């Protein structure tokens, strides 16, 4: 196939935001090409194969799940904008999730995709706070995307106007931070509203096939709309002339030009591609990169369903054993005091159960502590933390006989901040990008825009909405932007 050397739009990165933007642009007749350095699509929500098994990266659950017929939600907007039928994503709702705090998990709050369950739990455990909680929930407005609203206030400040118990404050923030905050120990109020809606008001779901299902749907739409992509061909440099991205230098040595460039790879990561541009331009995009939050995730493959071990009711468990919940870059390799437990089996798959059991545990991690380890030490550290994280998380699950988990485990894997940087190119193993978001997606380079984590919409739904919003705002109808 003869490849073009000029496109209407070049997109850097075949993650969810890049693919979603590509679908919009190709659908409306733009000549689009997505350049992806990795061999698999998906970016931060991807998959890999190991010993004949496919593992998901990223996706624990899709947030923002609403049943068919509920109108005016981010999921509905996304499906419309990408011309995707709901059934194509094959979303199956969660069973139940919990937020559990305390050394022995003394305080727990259950929640499901029905907000009434969480309200009941709060009324039971925090009777003095329930009215405040209801007032807070009522503040979460309609789901219009807040991409252009300035992030003004601290989420904690807003919560404290209604909720006076710090334990409840932390317990509410814990899942919202773990699933969508790039900021340490607080969130901006806009992001808080988005995540509160995404997790508590709406809910969690998953396709039985996991992220591969979502990616397949997006790739098929993109292809059918006429979009091109070049895999294993990243963008090595952006050549800037007169304040415009004049050309892209590719990993394979080639060069292409495009009227518009959308970069999903991060703001600092994008700035680094502008090697020939002025210091000032780069400085405008680049902040410090040492404040990125990263994670370690362990995956256990089980020879039985988690249910057979007595772990059949929880879909996700957000845990913390300390007095306050600290959401920050840890001083050591991993912070096992808090984390996320995910049972991908425990969604309502209605007879389409996953063939093997899976247990995923995710904890905050420090990139620097992992990045420079010699190989042997790196491997040893992975093994050590696999055990430590499993022990820590086990405190928050129904007790099972000693040795039962080990006996049921048939494979394990673990990925670290180093793995994330290696396969996604995101600096510091960042999952949610830089703490400072560039919500209008603009850069000092006129025809170069950001989408993805550093534009400011997080999670799987957020990533796709980011691509859609930026493609609309800057390329499809810039006249409607202001």
């Amino acid at each position, binding site marked *: 196939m003869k490849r073009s050397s000029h496109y209407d739009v070049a997109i850097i990165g075949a993650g969810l935001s890049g693919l979603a933007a590509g679908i919009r642009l190709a659908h409306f*007749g733009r000549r689009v090409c997505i350049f992806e350095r990795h061999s698999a699509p998906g970016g931060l929500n991807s998959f890999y194969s190991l010993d004949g098994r496919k593992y998901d990266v990223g996706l624990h659950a899709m947030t923002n799940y609403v049943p*068919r017929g509920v109108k005016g939600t981010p999921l*509905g*907007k996304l*499906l*419309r*904008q990408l*011309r995707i039928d709901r059934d194509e994503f094959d979303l199956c709702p969660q069973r139940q999730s919990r937020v559990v705090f305390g050394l022995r998990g003394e305080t727990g709050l259950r929640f499901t995709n029905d907000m009434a369950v969480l309200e009941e739990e709060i009324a039971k455990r925090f009777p003095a706070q329930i009215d405040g909680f209801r007032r807070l929930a009522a503040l979460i407005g309609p789901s219009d995307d807040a991409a252009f609203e300035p992030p003004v206030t601290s989420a904690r400040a807003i919560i404290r106007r209604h909720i006076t118990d710090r334990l409840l404050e932390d317990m509410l923030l814990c899942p919202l931070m773990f699933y969508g905050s790039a900021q340490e120990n607080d969130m901006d109020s806009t992001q808080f509203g988005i995540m509160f809606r995404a997790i508590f008001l709406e809910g969690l779901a998953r396709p039985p096939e996991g992220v591969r299902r979502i990616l397949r749907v997006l790739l098929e739409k993109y292809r059918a709309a006429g979009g091109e992509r070049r895999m294993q061909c990243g963008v090595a440099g952006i050549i800037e002339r007169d304040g415009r991205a004049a050309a892209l230098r590719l990993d394979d040595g080639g060069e292409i030009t495009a009227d518009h460039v959308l970069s999903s790879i991060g703001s600092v990561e994008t700035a680094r591609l502008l090697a020939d541009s002025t210091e000032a331009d780069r400085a405008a995009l680049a902040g410090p990169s040492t404040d990125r939050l990263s994670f370690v995730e362990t995956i256990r493959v089980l020879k039985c369903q988690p249910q057979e071990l007595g772990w059949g009711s929880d879909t996700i468990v957000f845990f913390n054993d300390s007095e306050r919940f600290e959401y920050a870059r840890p001083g050591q390799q991993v912070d096992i005091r808090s984390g996320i437990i995910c049972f991908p089996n425990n969604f309502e798959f209605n007879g389409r159960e996953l063939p093997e059991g899976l247990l995923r545990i995710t904890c905050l991690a420090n990139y620097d502590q992992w990045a420079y380890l010699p190989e042997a030490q790196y491997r040893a550290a992975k093994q050590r933390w696999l055990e430590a994280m499993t022990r820590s998380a086990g405190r928050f699950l129904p007790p099972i006989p000693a040795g039962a988990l080990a006996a049921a485990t048939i494979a394990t894997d673990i990925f670290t901040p180093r793995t994330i940087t290696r396969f996604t190119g995101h600096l510091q193993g960042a999952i949610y990008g830089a703490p400072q978001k560039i919500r209008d997606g603009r850069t000092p380079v006129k025809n170069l825009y950001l989408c993805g984590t550093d534009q400011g919409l997080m999670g799987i739904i957020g990533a796709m909405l980011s691509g859609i919003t930026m493609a609309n705002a800057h390329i499809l*109808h810039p*006249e409607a932007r202001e």
Partner: protein
Amino acid sequence: MTKDECKKLVVDIIADIAPDEDLSHLKPEVRLRDQLQLDSMDFLDIVMELRKRHGIEVPEADYIQLASLDSCADYLTPKFNALAAKT
């Protein structure tokens, strides 16, 4: 093209943009926004689909003409016919 044919083309477009909406009882004289959950993004998509599928341009100042099916037909039918006459 008749106005009824024109309305059908518009309904076809809405059906693709908003497959989750029931379009069988649309009242032609009532604003689409009052009958369906359509936001400004969806209206922009209607404009872009008209251009993509039928080569019809709707300048921004005329978006208001797309408020109801009746007003769509009044505004778009002459455009369709003018386009057909040219080819």
